[in-house]
Structures are given as structure tokens and as C-alpha cells.
């Protein structure tokens, strides 16, 4: 194992770059993160939904969770834990605001073999609950 380098305080955006109650994607060192802004502050998760890879940054944000825009799989903003489904959680990253700038801390490793699964599955416990996508079709069918 090589030395773990924790990247602390990567500036990802200015506070006003993210509209209140929404998320935006930011790619840090090749890795897509979702940065959310709520009444309680900023949160950062891996952007990729564990279900079908949907962009969580485009999801609907509630007080404590975000729902993926593709099939409504939910994740806790603070921890990345999966809520109400068994697809697994996503990684959550500490976020800090200083003088209107937003900083994210990510653990990084130099020169290690790729091991994405440790990130993808390491984050969260899974609640044993059956997933039922919300009733009816996805928000909009593909027909014109």
C-alpha cells in the first residue's frame, strides 16, 4: 500500500454557484461528485447512483435526502446511506464553507491499483427494504 493522501479543502465552487435546494455536478480529479445546497448547508456525495448510474446532482433534494432523477432511489445527504432500497450507498465527503467558498475533503491515494468497489460499497449500511419505484411511470415518458 502506498501512502494515503487526504486532499483537504478542494475548492469546488462559490456558494452562489449552486441554487438553494438543488445540486450540481463537479468533477474532481476525474471523479464526479454531486454538491448540494440546502437550508442546512452544503453536502457532497458521489454523483453516480448505485442503481443505474443516474446523476444524483440532478435529483430532488428533501430536508435530509436526495432522490435520483432516474428511478427515485434515495440517499442521505450527510452520510450517503441508501434509504429504502438495496442498491447500496454512495460515498459522502465532508464539506466546509469559508468566506462564501465551498471546500470538499476527499481521501486520495497515490498510485494504487484501481479499487472502485471500496468506494462504491464502503460507504453505507443497507436497509433491508424492497424497492418499489414510485407509482406510475417515470416523470416523463420518452414520447413526443
Amino acid at each position, binding site marked *: 500500500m502506498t501512502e494515503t493522501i487526504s486532499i483537504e479543502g478542494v475548492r469546488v465552487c462559490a456558494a452562489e454557484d449552486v441554487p438553494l435546494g438543488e445540486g450540481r455536478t463537479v468533477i474532481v480529479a476525474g471523479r464526479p461528485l454531486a454538491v448540494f445546497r440546502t437550508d442546512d448547508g452544503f453536502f457532497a456525495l458521489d454523483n453516480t447512483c448505485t442503481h443505474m448510474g443516474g446523476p444524483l446532482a440532478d435529483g430532488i*433534494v428533501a*430536508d435530509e435526502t436526495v432522490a435520483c432523477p432516474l428511478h427515485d432511489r434515495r440517499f442521505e445527504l450527510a452520510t450517503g446511506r441508501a434509504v429504502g432500497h438495496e442498491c447500496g450507498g454512495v460515498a459522502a465527503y465532508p464539506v466546509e464553507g469559508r468566506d462564501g467558498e465551498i471546500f470538499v475533503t476527499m481521501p486520495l491515494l497515490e498510485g494504487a491499483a484501481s479499487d472502485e468497489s471500496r468506494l462504491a460499497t464502503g460507504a453505507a449500511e443497507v436497509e433491508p427494504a424492497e424497492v418499489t419505484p414510485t407509482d406510475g411511470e417515470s416523470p*416523463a415518458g420518452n414520447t413526443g
Partner: protein
Amino acid sequence: MSTNGHHFGANGNGGRAANDRSPAPKRVVIVGGGIAGQSLCERLRERDSDVQVTLVCAEPHLPYDRVHLSDLLSDEEPSGPLGELQLRPDEWYDDNGVEVLVDTKVERIDLPGHELELSNGDTVAYDKLALAIGSQPLMPPIPGIELEGVYAYRGPTDTAAIRAAAAEATHAAVIGGGLLGLEAARGVQAQGCPVTVVHLMDRLMERQLDAGAASMLLPAMEELDMEVSLERQTEEILADDDGHVRGLRFSDGEELAADLVAVSIGIRPEKELAEHAGIDCNRGIIVDDRLCTSEPDVVALGECAEHRGVVYGIVAPIYEHAKVAADTLLERDGDEYRGSLPWAKLKVAEVDLVSIGDVEGDGGATSALAERREYRKIAMRDGRMVGAILLGDTRGTEALLEAVRSGERVDDPLARLAEAAEAGPEELPDEAQVCDCNGVCKGDIVRAVTEDGMSSKQEVMSVTRAGTGCGSCKPLVADIVAIAGGSDEPAYLCPCRKQTREFVAEQIMSNGHDAVSEVSEACGTGRECGLCKPALAYLVSQINDNRHREERSARHINDRVHANIQNDGTFSVVPRMRGGVTNSDQLRRIADAADKYDVGMIKVTGGQRIDLLGVKKDDLPAIWEDIGMPSGHAYGKAVRQVKSCVGTDFCRFGLGDSIKLGVELEGEWEGLHTPAKVKSGVSGCPRNCAEATVKDIGVVAIEGGWQVYVGGAAGGSVRKGDVIATVETAEESKRVATAFLQYYREHASFKERTYDFVPRVGLEELQEQVLDEDNQATLLERFRLAKTAAAARDPWLERRDPYHERQFTDLDSIQLPQAGGNGANGHGDEPGDSESVAEERELELVGPPPEGER
């Protein structure tokens, strides 16, 4: 212990360590990775979190769902060798401390030594052993059964092979006209291959149907272009010169040409492993009412077990077995197993068929409607109900299942049959089993709502497990949840806060809320899971006649950026083309834009429009600018399009000017949001080329006037619309259609399509509301108010005036200039030079973040 198979789940020491208080942990080894083995794992874990559980699977993958095997055959594109049929995700086994050995066979059971010998030479010790080894397909011992092109319909490997073969084959034969055989035949057909079902008996599904029902099922299958050949004993499977199957020869000497043969004539319980160890076997492995075999530390369950002389080849008993077996293995008191009621549902989409118990009996009642292919029967024995058949009309399935299960005494079976058809979820007794897979009764669901405070179907399902097996009872679960909630509403607008649409609407009106955040603040609506925010946003906008304060955070991404998100995160762009009419100038601009923005696909939609697929979010404003047409609202719950035929302008049959009416209607309605999408059509004559009778709102020209249809559908649901009015002029038809649209906007639940709304409200009530002169005038006035505000701005004009600087753009990428320890502080605006980019690629993220470890 090591194996040459793949390892999933807990490490080789067998999962979670026992705590200090308990005696030496018991180790349960389960042989067999099917539904039975998986189900037993789950029941064991529910009862005991410490016991070591090892699951040994002979197949090279984790447990999968065999019940829905036919889905794999008929799905258009399976998403992998097992499609979506894996029962639990890989992580489940880790999370639950279940050690799984896949691709590992058990060669021998050493009963005295309490040990298993594995195919890789290893051994596994057990305290308790469960045999869930299932069954093999029964293959007739006839010449040619081993030929290339002959498949058994049982396992996913076969399924994939059959699918591939069916795509190439010119004609398939399925041997066996039972439940699985018919499903297999339908699956083969789905690959475009003609099929003949060859059956030994004189009727289909003779184990589940009486002669009357079978005689009605036969034409139903033939109508699906399936050939059925009865009383055919296959004597030989014929080979061509290359040793590939070329046909069947029957006992009467006749032959059938077939280059693909699927065999599905039944099961043969796997018992050799047990038999060789000296465990008592008959047709299957003999078990008692505790599912114990002749060996005290060994249980058997599922299709390999024979209980009271019966081997079960259906799924529901497996779940019952798993519960009893779990108690027995853990030496706990529990219910005994006294046999299962055999019942089955044919999973062929076009044919509804349920068979329960003993369908012959010594009496009973039958109601048959040959022209409608309906056959309903109650079978009686000694004055008690012992079985039922429901073909074509399966209403009352749960009620009859319960009646047969309890051996209900019936005096007038014909009346009982009629009563069952009417029996809604309200009439079901509390002890009626709703979910057969998990043994959940109506009472369990009601209590989850009334005593445990669950409110949504999803919550109830996760707590009671109802609906989490084969899933066929989900609609009933939803109904019971709604009833138990004491509300007539099919669903709460906000399930977390148990707020109905009416309640929230009342709050908005009486407090004058004009923004989602105000309602959330005041009532808590949408704060917990947030999934109802779009419904709330619609309600706020509708009640305020679109003079509300728009908050995009409450909208789905589609309505934030006015385009339809696709599975890869790109978007699709559909410009408005009223009535499906366009011109060369528009087409030229669309073509140029498609080239310029490199769209993945240009697709003509079913609604007579053009869809540009695969557009990146940040290209949206520019592509709209280049196209220069208004939004088609193809992404939203809104009026989509009014499809039209060419009508009197060109068509020699045209009776009305459908293009003019279509273009005008679309112009009047466009831009309005609705509870669910609204598709519309105008046909110029009753030949109905615009398919107006299966639209949410449709208008059809007839001799001397127009008919207005509402509540039609031709998507996931198919429903012919109801004629709400027949009027003389196109102007009148517009008023009726528009008044209906407004009534729907004001009264439907969010996501409730007109095909649900119209039957729920009832046609008479709708006519009263929409056709009455005063009501109509009021509706049209409110429509005008809403439309005026909505029409003030085409959403695609936000390209010039976005609600936020980053409405369409994400944040700038951050490249780390070097792997520089703390404080690496890249900024996306700085283009990384090639060297730093190369370094950046070597950085790999590891480990769960601190937050995630909690």
C-alpha cells in the same frame, strides 16, 4: 477453507463472530442456491444473527429468481445472463454475514462426520444441514433427446440458449402443454419464431384445468398464433446430417419439422445426494411436518422434498418450507408444515388464468361465456369448496383462495362465484392471505397501517414483506393500505405526512400560499422524502392559476431544464409541431442543429414530432436557439401534442378538417401543465387514423358533427375512450374538450392519467360537470386565466433569461495539479498541462470517507 469457486460474502470463518454468551455457534450449511436456499438464509438471519450460515451453490452465480424465468425469455433485451433476476445484490451476503460458495458442488454427505465433501476436494463441516437442491427437468427417454437443438426449459443457461436458438430457428416445438410449456412457447414466439406445442394429453394444463376451461384456453392460445397439437406422443426426435434436430416423429408415424425443441414436461426432484448418504427417499427426499429428513440434523425443502407424498413444483410452498425449516434448524418451536394448497397463475400476458386446488371435485358451479373466453368455476367436495378456476376474469382470486384454504362450506356455489367476482379488498376477511410468497394476511397489512403507523405501500411492503416475492399481489397490497388508511384517496399526495391532495389544496387556498416552500414550512409537506414536491408544485401552480412563485428546486430535473433526462444523463429535445404539421424551413433548422450538436439519434415520435436524443445539458440553450421553435413539453406532465390525420384537406374519406382543429387545439392547450401527461388526437373520419379514440382527449369527425372522447389510452394501459359528447361544430368540440381538460387539471391526483380518472369519477358526473352550460363557462374561464399566465413565456426562452446563472451548467471540473498532500487546491478554470493531467490519472480514491463509516 478455500475453494476454487468464487467467494461472495463473509470470509471463510463463516461470518459474524458469535458473542461470548452463547455456546459454540451452530453452523448451518445450506446446499442449493435457488429460491429455497436464499429464502432459508433470510429466515435464519431473521431469527438468529449469530448462527454461521454457509450457502453452497452449484451454479456459477448467486441465487436468482426462477419464477420469472419466462420474463428472461420474452424480454426484448436481457440485461445480462440473469437479467434482473438475481434475488439479492452481491452486498447483501456481506451485510448479512452469509458465506456463499458458488460454482461449487457437494459430492458427498458424510452423515456421521457431519461433513460435506466438495467438488474442489475441500470439506465443510456442519452442525445442521439443509438440502435445497431443487429438481431437474424431466426428460423423456426417447431417441434423439440428446441432439443439438433440444433444450430443457428450467435453468437460465437453457433460457439464454433457447433465446439465441429461437432467434435463428425457423420453427420450434415445445414438448409439454403444461404451465411452464405454454410460458416457454410464448417466450420462443417473442423471438419471432413460430411454435407448435406438442402435448401428450387430450387437453392443455390438465393438472390445473378441467375439460371446460382447457377447451377455452386452447383457442386463446391459438389466437396468439401458437399451434397446439394434442394427444401426441413423441416417439423420436429426428436429426439432420449434422446431428442437429430437424423434427419430431410421433407414435402415429406423423412428423413435425422443427429445428428447435424445448422440453417442459415436469420435474424430477434431485435426491441422489441424499439417497447415497442413506437418507430415506421416495420420489423426493422424504420429510416430516418439521421438514426433517430421516436424519435428525438434516432438513430438506423446496422442490427436492417430498412431504406427505407430495412434491411441490411451484413457488409459494417454498416460502412456507423456509420458515418451518429455519425453526427446525435452530431448534425452535414453530408451526408445523401441513402441506400447501396448490395454485397457479399462468404468466402469459394476454391470458389471465388462475387455477386453485382440486378443480374437479364432486360438484360445484361453472359460469362460462364462450364468446368472451371467460370461464369461472368453483369445485366442491362434500359441501365444501376445494378448488376454483378463473379464466379470462380473475376477479376474486384472493377471496376464493382463502375460501378453498379454509374449506368454506357453500350452499349455493353459483351465488358464491358471483359474490367472489364482486369481492373487493374491503370484503376480504382479515385472515385472507394476500401475499402467498411470504404468507402475509390482510390483517397483517391492516395492522401495519393502523397500529404501526405505516402509510405508504412501500413502507408496508418493507415491514410485512407482502409483495416482495413474485410481486403479483402488489396492487392488492396498495388497495388494502388505502382502505386501512381510512381514506378514499388512492394515494396521499405526501405519504410521509399522510396529507391528501384535498388537505393540501385546502391549506393552499385558505392561507393563500403561492410557493412550495411556504406550504412545506407551514405543513411539512414534501420535507421528508421530497418525492411529492413535483405534485405539490403542480398543485400550487394550478390553484394559483399559474400566478405562483416558481421554485425550481421542487421540480424534477426535466422541468428545471425543460428537457427529458435519459438513462445516461443526457437529454432529449422535442420542439412543438402543432398537429404534427411542419415545414421545410423547420426541418432544415432541426437537421442543422442535429449535426452541430452531434445528437445521438433523430427519432420520429409516436406523437408526430421529432425527438433529438442525447443532447448534453449545457448544450440545451444553444440548440433551442438554433432550432428557433417553441418547447414541445415532451418532458413534462403537460399537454403533449394533438396528433391529426390529413382530414378533408387531402384525404378522399375525410369528413372534417382534422388538421385545422388539431393545430388549433394544440395552440390553445400548449404550455399548460396537467396532473399527468395529456396526449390528444383529432381524426377526420371514423377510420380514426389519428388514433383519437385511444387518446386522453380525442375528437373524431363523423357525418354531420364531431365526437369527443375522453379517458382513452394506448400505452402501458389500453383503454378505449368514452364519448363524453357528440356535437355539431368543431368550435363546440373545442369547448367540450377544453372544459374537460380544465376539470381534469383541477380534480385529478398527480400522476393520475385520464384513463384512471375518467372511470373513477364516472362518465355521467363528468358530463354533468363539463356539458352543463354554467359549469362549462366557469371551467373555460378558469382555463383562460391559467393559460394566459402559462402562455406568457415559452420555457425554452429561459435560454436567454435563466432563473439561475447555472440553470443549464454544472460546476467547473477540478484538476489537481499534483498529488500534493494537504490543501491541493485546483481550480477548474486553469487548464491542466499535459503533465499534471497524467499525474492526476494516477490518483485513485480509496476507502470509505469518515462520514460513511458510521
